[in-house]
């Protein structure tokens, strides 16, 4: 694809079946979580000891619990639907905060140059030196596992990508004639940055953001899996997986279902990110 993409955003998007499929998957999961109370009548938290480890419907179970029940007799479908809520909100907030911080720092580093630039980039190097999950584990261990702390940890792990990309974009654009023209015409630095530079480096932010949403969901469910994220009895995919691990030999659906949900979300976000990248930069195909 060598021709420059033309037409409205909608028609361009339609040219990337990958992005459409990914977006569709994401919307589906988000809707399912948001509409959980309409989709199931079961309570995700209420144990029912008479119905522990019931098999899914069609595998010996009843239609009352389509995906079966867990070790405390709670309906797995309800837990899956409600469990998505917190995970998805946490991941989305983390992506937004990381993007905001990263874009601002990237703009700052790229426009200010000199020592400020060097400092921001060194901090980014330091950040990248830690395996994200280890850093998250250490911070969560110190500040606790409340959802706010989780968002903070996830955001902290994500800002570097934006900062580096934006900085590179600013450096590439800063010397261009139209920017110089704006400066000559008396536009302030801030105006040049936000009016003339930022709009031109916005596309990669969308690409990074949607791929990063996948990473954030993985990271959050990984932490919850280890017992360092969302805490019981709140339903969370990672936590459900960890609980299901003890019942692999007699109730395999406990661990299988939440993993499928995580994979669907991550697959959707990855496809969307890849599709958007192809649209933004066709040369990477």
């Amino acid at each position, binding site marked *: 694809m060598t021709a420059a993409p033309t037409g409205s955003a909608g028609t361009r998007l339609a040219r990337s079946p990958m992005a459409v499929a990914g977006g569709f998957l994401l919307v589906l999961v988000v809707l399912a979580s948001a509409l959980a109370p309409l989709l199931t009548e079961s309570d995700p938290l209420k144990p029912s000891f008479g119905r522990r480890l019931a098999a899914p419907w069609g595998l010996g179970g009843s239609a009352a619990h389509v995906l079966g029940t867990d070790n405390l007799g709670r309906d797995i479908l309800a837990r899956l639907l409600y469990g998505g809520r917190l995970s998805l909100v946490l991941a989305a907030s983390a992506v937004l905060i990381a993007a905001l911080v990263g874009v601002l720092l990237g703009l700052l580093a790229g426009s200010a140059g000199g020592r400020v630039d060097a400092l921001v980039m060194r901090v980014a*190097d330091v950040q990248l030196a830690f395996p994200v*999950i*280890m850093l998250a584990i*250490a911070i969560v261990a110190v500040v606790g596992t409340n959802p706010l702390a989780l968002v903070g940890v996830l955001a902290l792990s994500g800002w570097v990508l934006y900062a580096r990309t934006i900085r590179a974009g600013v450096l590439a654009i800063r010397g261009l004639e139209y920017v110089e023209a704006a400066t000559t015409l008396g536009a302030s630095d801030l105006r040049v940055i936000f009016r003339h530079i930022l709009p031109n480096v916005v596309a990669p932010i969308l690409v990074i953001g949607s791929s990063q949403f996948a990473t954030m969901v993985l990271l959050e469910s990984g932490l919850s899996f*280890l017992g360092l994220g969302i805490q019981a009895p709140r339903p969370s995919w990672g936590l459900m997986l960890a609980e*299901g691990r003890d019942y692999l030999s007699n109730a*395999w659906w406990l661990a299988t279902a939440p*993993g499928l949900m995580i994979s669907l979300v991550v*697959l959707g976000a990855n496809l969307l990110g890849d599709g958007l990248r192809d649209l933004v930069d066709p040369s990477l195909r």
Partner: protein
Amino acid sequence: MRAYVLHRLWQSALTLLGVSVFVFVILRVLPGDPAKMLLPEGAPQSAVEELNRQLGLREPLIVQYGIFLRGVFAGDFGQSFQYRAPALRVVVERLPATIQLALAAMALTVALGVSIGIAAAVRRGTCCDYAGTALAVLGQSLPNFWLGIMLILLFGVALRWLPTSGFAGWRHLILPAVTLAAFPVALVARLTRSSMLEILSREYIRTGRAKGLTERAVVLRHALRNAAIPVLTVIGLQIGTLLGGAVITESVFAWPGMGKLVVDAIFFRDFPVVQTVLILSATAFVVLNLAVDLLYTVIDPRIRYS
């Protein structure tokens, strides 16, 4: 060349210094009362006072940091109270298991990732290409803790072919290594594919074919060597992914490495061990990436210094 090496050395040293500041801030400044955190729960007040004095916790932060840094350089990372031994020794004892796992995963990454990538690029647009790409997208989307559990379910519980936990011989290594490698294999396969595609469209490749080189020689000798450069950087960066992934993989398979150690340490509030693992893994990342960067200049004569 020398200037470049010196510059990279200096940069790496700065990064390591930053790493120490970061760890210091997280484990000494963020918690209000680090002495209490660094001691087992229910430690007597006299022990808290003693540690306060020893760590200089009544001194200004910068002095505390100096004491912290001096300890790190002397290899003194504090005492693990879970194991009642120096934290560094506790962590180093677990290193071989993690290194073994990481090396096995790395071998899989290079062997599988690069071959899938080449096969897909050479047969671009065929079902071979699509299958490889689909596999790679899938590999990047399956959470490794779930993949691990599904492998246990299939090969351990259902088929009973492979052991699913512990550390005794190479059969125990198979499932954890595959689990840990899935993500980097997928990443390297996709990158190798796009890198190869770019190189295969170059003029000198056409020249090579025109002068009658076998396809094998064109692909392996002329294309791969040039396509390997971006792949090599990413493989270098995967050291972080492997160390991080090891935390979860080791927990899933009860593999007695550094990753399982650090997770257990959190639950025992064994912060000297957490601190040691953080510093060691960040150092490993910085040093190995420095090595990759310097290796570049050997592989690619075009890169000298910038």
